């Protein structure tokens, strides 16, 4: 099993959820994070002049899925979240060794 961690623009979340839903990937966990990358920060207005916010609010979407479906999910994320502008975010893939469904205690594939 693989964990897909996508750090995306907050405003894309609703769309992404919908597309993932439509393709049957309903389970996910979302965290509000702040990020910094090629985009550096953004300028916000103070009473007078502006100040740089070094970290930009982003959303981290985590999905644990079967290894085979990873590419499908990446594709969906790219299709929804890529605007071509700096700040679109990153996707990180890593291994998950075990999954347990708390409700039933089931483990592995069938717990996903």
């Amino acid at each position, binding site marked *: 099993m693989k964990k897909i961690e996508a750090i995306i623009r907050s*405003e*894309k979340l609703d769309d992404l959820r919908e597309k993932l839903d439509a393709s049957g990937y309903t389970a996910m966990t979302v965290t509000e994070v702040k990020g910094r990358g090629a985009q550096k920060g953004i300028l*916000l*207005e103070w009473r007078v002049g502006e100040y740089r916010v070094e970290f930009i609010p982003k959303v981290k979407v985590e999905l644990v899925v079967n290894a085979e479906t990873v590419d499908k999910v990446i594709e969906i994320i790219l299709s929804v979240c890529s605007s071509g502008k700096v700040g679109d975010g990153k996707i990180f893939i890593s291994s998950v060794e075990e999954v347990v469904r708390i409700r039933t205690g089931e483990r592995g594939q069938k717990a996903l």
Partner: protein
Amino acid sequence: MINSGDTAWVLISTALVILMTPAVGFFYGGMVRKKSLLSTVMMCFASLFLISVQWVLVGYTLSFGPSKAGLIGGLQWLGLIGVGQAPNPDYAATIPALAFMLFQAAFAIVTPSLIVGSFVERIKFGAFLIFTSLWSLLVYYPVAHWVWGVGGWLRALGALDFAGGTVVHVTAGFAALAVALVIGKRIGYGKDNMEPSNIPLVVIGAVLLWFGWFGFNGGSALAANGLAVSAVVVTNTAAAAAALVWMVLSWLHRRPSVLGVATGAVVGLVAITPASGFVDPLSALAIGGIAAAISYYMIVLRMKLRIDESLDVFACHGMGGLWGSIATGIFASQAINAAGADGLLFGNPGLLWVQIVTVAVTAVFSFIVTYALATLIDLIVGLRVSENEELVGLDISQHAEVA
């Protein structure tokens, strides 16, 4: 002759009503998504400073200046020239003319702020400022003159509107519907979560509105007398009754929500506004309770029609004000206010008829002019932010700030 008690009451009432405009901002701001919370607060705050200035320059004289054929005030009082510390007995004999002027300013300020609820989360801030300035000129000042100006044609007809059910709420409510139709739905409307971001802030807003409304209706007596007291009493009673009914309705549906009772209270306050100087407390219970039901089901209908009149200004203010104005024609009694008139229940169906005409004229006028105005602004400068700005939220895209 200036009476110090009356002056004290009108001054503090004015302060209360001015507080209502930012209160509308909090009430609305807590109901939108976090990404446009500040922009919503900002638009209401902008009504305060924008119309304050416009009113001093031209608004007061257009609304209350010597009448031109009952249609609009003359320009004699441009820049408040001639409006001073002495009373103007045409409007209020015991308080300085400037006190009446500023009390009325507060009404002119709050009215456009009400409309904000219809186009939150998608309007350009610049377009909003243009809209608000012109709307006051084209809709509010004329209607205020018709209903309240000496010589105004609806006033001459015998229309009763104690504190602005027609002038304030019907105009704002129907304007809201018009702009909502022109500007269109928010992206994702009916699909994405559009959850209220800050319900405590909504309650703070609602509570300050309730508080301010004592000045709104009580101050409209323009004196600290029995009538002012009576108006304050029925105001509190109608608000409470409406909140109670809304709670029951939402409980019948599923749960008694805080958002619901806050809305209910505001609807009750709206509905009692035109009637507040003419009815007794038991009538206020009826007016408030019925108002809640009317607005509740109007929202149900509005949602069925999938119109994104986002914060239901039409259902709450348009329908609340309409019902209140008509209810004035039913429940008004000269036992409460000798200077008023009796309504249907006291044997005078004529008043009801006048009230219906007044409301109808105002509603149609406000809707049509607003629709045209919004369309025009949309054509010339564009009402709506770009899709990306809308998705990012108005706080960042219009004001470069985050709540």
